[in-house]
């Protein structure tokens, strides 16, 4: 798998990542959506008993232009980031060109117990934070023994 990581780490962690990837490559049943690590925006996902929290690291994107959709338990984050590079005819030289530019789309499968009507999305400091509540009926309950 050849790609350029958005946020490369130091050499030792790179080795560790490589090891993980080799291991995943031998996995007999990998996810149908593949390993999208290294895509834009980078995603961090966490969960609490009451909600699922998704952080999409999309710096420099107009929040109004980000399209977030939730359909049948699949969350899609799509949009476009414009390039900061000068046009070809400009009298400027590009020395380093690492930042992502262009259209992006990332898809996440969510747990079954989420409530599609209780979604909140906020954009701050270049991070889109999507919080989805879990349905109350499925939240763990303590059962009293009589």
């Amino acid at each position, binding site marked *: 798998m050849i790609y350029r990581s958005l946020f490369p780490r130091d050499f030792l962690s790179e080795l560790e990542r490589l090891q993980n990837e080799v291991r995943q490559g031998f996995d007999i049943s990998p996810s149908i959506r593949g390993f999208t690590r290294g895509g834009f925006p980078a995603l961090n996902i966490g969960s609490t008993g009451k909600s699922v*929290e998704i952080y999409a690291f999309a710096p420099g994107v107009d929040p109004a232009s980000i399209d977030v959709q939730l359909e049948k338990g699949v969350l899609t984050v799509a949009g476009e980031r414009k390039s900061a590079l000068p046009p070809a005819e400009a009298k400027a030289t590009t020395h380093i060109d690492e930042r992502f530019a262009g259209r992006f789309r990332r898809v996440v499968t969510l747990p079954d117990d989420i409530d599609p009507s209780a979604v909140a999305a906020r954009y701050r400091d270049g991070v889109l934070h999507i919080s989805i509540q879990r349905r109350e009926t499925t939240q763990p309950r303590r059962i009293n023994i009589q």
Partner: protein
Amino acid sequence: MSETTAVSKESTAPREEAALVPPVDVIEDSGGITLYADLPGVPKDKLNLHVDSGTLTIEGELGLEMPEAMESTHAEVSLPRYRRTFTLSRELDADKVTAEFADGVLKLRIPKAEHALPRKIEISVA
């Protein structure tokens, strides 16, 4: 403007905490250099820019709001900090660096020193 190697960084600085390397764009025109760096999740007060004897260091710490009981299930941004160091060449005026930071994107403008600005040389006809 070139990146310092990991080896020279280790020999000069005390042991630093592990950090992610933010992606950058570096563009040079006749007046100077413009640098864009992606530092998503870094609030303005946790961004640190440092110019010291020809070395530019960009450092930022993540300040995400997370629910207390949250358990991480998948993390692509796996460290809470970004760091990247560049060596500035002599014709750049490190005293006149200007910076803008919005929506996780840092824009730095490093102008060239007066004496290094390009000049058109007049050709006199004899």
